[in-house]
């Protein structure tokens, strides 16, 4: 599995994604905060599915659960699903133009949010606020930037 793959940029980007998803922001920005860690995981799922794949998604999700203090496994399941779809589509998504990629990422993020929404409801803490869908939009808007940054990090290795 691991021959010839340098996983350091991946792990570094995961740490940065995690920090960015909990760093304090003013309230109005906080509502629109993209799911940085999710975008990072989706990027690696699309570009190098063998490097992290679903295991990366699962553990990143578990970390998010621990940070956000929700029921353990919630973000893990949602992130695994989004990452699985991304891995399934990765050969196609890679050759899409970047805007088309952003659209794909948008609905992956929406799928992720929907899973969270659903599990929130099932575990008895529903958040029925339309603002909770904003991160999917902002995340998709930021995808070109992310793909550029992470692409640089990946190619340098």
């Amino acid at each position: 599995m691991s021959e010839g793959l340098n996983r350091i940029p991946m792990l570094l980007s995961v740490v940065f994604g995690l920090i960015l998803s909990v760093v304090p922001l003013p309230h109005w920005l906080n509502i629109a905060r993209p799911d940085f860690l999710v975008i990072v995981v989706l990027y690696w799922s699309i570009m190098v599915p063998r490097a992290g794949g679903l295991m990366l998604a699962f553990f990143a999700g578990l970390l998010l659960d621990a940070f956000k203090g929700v029921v353990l496994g919630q973000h893990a399941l949602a992130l695994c699903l989004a990452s699985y779809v991304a891995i399934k589509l990765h050969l196609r998504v890679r050759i899409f133009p970047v805007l088309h990629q952003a659209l794909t990422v948008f609905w992956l993020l929406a799928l992720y949010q929907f899973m969270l929404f659903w599990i929130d409801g099932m575990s008895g803490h529903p958040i029925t606020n339309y603002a909770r869908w904003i991160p999917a939009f902002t995340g998709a808007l930021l995808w070109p930037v992310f793909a550029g940054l992470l692409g640089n990090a990946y190619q340098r290795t």
Partner: protein
Amino acid sequence: MVALRTAESRPILGRGPSPGLRFFFFALLSIGLMWLDQRQGYLESLRHALSMVTYPVQVAVNSPTAFWDWLHESFETREHLQAENAQLKVRLRDADFRLMRLVDLEQENMRLRGLREATSRVAQRFVVAEILRVDLNPFRHRVIVNKGTSDGAFKGQPILDASGIFGQITRAGTFSSEAILITDAEHAIPVQVNRNGLRTIAVGTGDPGTLSLPFLATNADIKAGDLLVSSGLGGVFPPGYPVATVTKVNKAAAQMLAEISAEPAAKLDRDREVLLIWTNEPPIDVPAEPEETTATKTTPGAKP
């Protein structure tokens, strides 16, 4: 950036289980985790272990703002410090003056309670905890404080700030704990109108500046400006601490219940430091006041 990668990054058939199988495995694992966590509560030790991992990151995330605050304090001007010092002296004098009477009143209270063989529940001990500047979910009012079970914090421990009740601990880790604020939409606190002893429940609204009192009838004796203090029913919060001030009372004649909103006394969104308190009785003592509890349950807010 988006070009096709070389062969080394392309999936090669026959390497490990297929993505579908892996997804099935991880999905089952997460659902199992959720079930264990939600229904059984078995995962406290795993949570503890995870909080050891998350705490350093939380401290790291918090450190730039903490450093900035420290810098700000270090380079405060002399005039500013003098003004603050003078202001604090005045406040200390006022507080001392009130404290003089308090010692006497406390003695009298103890004596009277001794006559009635009733125990008082006054905060006995407190520890100052710092709120870590870490954003959790923007739709929930939860914070992380830097005290955990190693400092004696426990689940359900009340948290106060200098001006009122702040919240309670929902999950105590080893070095840090998660707390819920009284304004969280999932939080409710039993309160009493200080003016006449009317008891009710203040429910969080999800808005950082508002509590709502949904269980009072339209003929209840409550008006804007009333101070709400904790009633101590429910056994979590000690009685007699300020919770909120009533800001708006809307008594529509057609409605059974009045719409009442109140503003929390604690500075929920501006606090840096809060107090974790221990009362002199075990935290959960619901059977200690059975008559009062049932009385409020059957006729909420009916007692004048």
